[in-house]
């Protein structure tokens, strides 16, 4: 019994003013089990973000079916490619907006802020924080939803490798305490190998499933760059990164 079933026959973007129409996804099928960490690996612009948007229910215009097991849709969290924090609300307020007011809510927010290592910054506005810290806040917000499924769209992109590595470790740490289905979109095969139970490899536009790789590395092996490299070399193709800046850093441009 899988928790998420995806079967998209066709997702087509009709032509608009300047852009020609294009087929984003065609014949994509997969399912994900409870608490499974699935990485979706594919080249830039292959429809990975579109896929997450469809699962999140942001876009209903597709042919096919996406079904979430009972109660999961109410506990869906989405970490976008940019932090998408409200710039006019403090870190604390950004997270608290997802929760009920009152003491219990305040307590949860404080706990989440501590969990992502932002103690001392809870009253700062996002604009006063570095991108890495904003990403931490976005992660804390996602977990405020008490998620049963967590969608992540290249959440650690445009950070330096050390910062990205710290955030990956943080994510693993949080997930160890709260088993969650994770769908993690990335173009970085090493990142996928470090994190995933299973990797879905997509081909370019329109997105279709070309390979499925189960990652059997031990937690220790995942921290060893050589073994990750060897695993990637043997099992996974390389992809060039998404051209950055499709979403501006402050989340204010329209796409």
């Amino acid at each position, binding site marked *: 019994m899988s928790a998420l079933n995806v079967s998209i026959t066709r997702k087509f973007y009709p032509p608009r003013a300047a852009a020609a129409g294009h087929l984003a996804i065609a014949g994509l099928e997969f399912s994900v089990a409870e608490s499974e960490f699935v990485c979706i690996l594919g080249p830039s612009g292959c429809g990975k973000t579109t896929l997450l948007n469809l699962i999140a*229910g942001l876009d209903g215009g597709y042919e096919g079916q996406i079904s979430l097991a009972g109660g999961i849709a109410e506990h869906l969290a989405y970490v976008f490619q940019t932090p998408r924090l409200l710039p006019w609300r403090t870190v604390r307020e950004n997270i608290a907006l997802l929760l009920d007011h009152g003491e219990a809510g305040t307590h949860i927010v404080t706990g989440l802020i501590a969990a992502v290592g932002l103690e001392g910054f809870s009253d700062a*506005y996002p604009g006063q924080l570095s991108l890495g810290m904003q990403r931490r806040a976005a992660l804390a917000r996602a977990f405020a939803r008490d998620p049963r499924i967590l969608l992540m769209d290249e959440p650690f992109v445009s950070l330096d490798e050390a910062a990205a590595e710290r955030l990956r470790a943080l994510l693993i740490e949080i997930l160890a305490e709260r088993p969650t289905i994770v769908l993690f979109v990335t173009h970085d095969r090493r990142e996928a190998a470090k994190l995933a139970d299973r990797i879905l490899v997509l081909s370019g536009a329109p997105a279709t499933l070309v390979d499925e790789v189960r990652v059997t590395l031990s937690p220790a092996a995942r921290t060893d760059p050589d073994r990750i490299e060897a695993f990637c070399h043997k099992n996974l193709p390389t992809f060039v990164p998404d051209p950055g800046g499709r979403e501006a850093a402050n989340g204010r441009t329209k*796409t």
Partner: protein
Amino acid sequence: MALWWLAALLIDSRNLPGPGAVLAALGEAAVSGELHTHVLITLARVAVSFTLAMVIGTAIGIFLGRKPGADHFFDGWLILALNMPALVTIILCYIWFGLTEVAAILAVTVNKIPNVAVTVREGARTVSRELTEMAQVYRFGRWKTLRHVIGPQLNPFISASARTGLALVWKIVLVVELLGRSNGVGFQLHLFFQLFDIASILAYAIAFIVVVQMIEIFLLQPWDRAANRWRP
């Protein structure tokens, strides 16, 4: 100030009284309590019609900015309303609803609504889709989205229309009072006009400008500062 005083001295006419005469008139009106009464009445009218115009205009602006279809349909009407001479609205209101307080307030409000709607519409059109999507994913609901996501993005536009709005509203209120009310600063100005009491006219004008300045300094500016606290 010195220039005014010098000009008044040179011309030496009742058409341009000097600062001294105006100040005397101001003092006289203040002591008799007349200034106080009429300024307060006018302010009350300004407050009511300004609030109504801001609330209704903002609602219309958000609606039109978020719904391109409706915007397309109502755009022509909005332009029409925007360019309707204030005097026409006032006269029509008085004819249709009589020389009443309601007609006066309505006339001012109707004059101001299109300005607010047009300004706020520009803001509503540029609301960030990314943040709206975020609010949708995290199920903020309509009210939370409006208050925490859309509202703050509209704030500069609402603030701009409040500024121009206040200036426009109090000027129109004076006209409305002049045409159909028996109290308020507008009515007093009309009275002084008939008496050619220019010192008093200037005295009332100065008193009212000072009051509006106070509103700007003690209400609008602190509100602006609070709303922009987050900007680095």
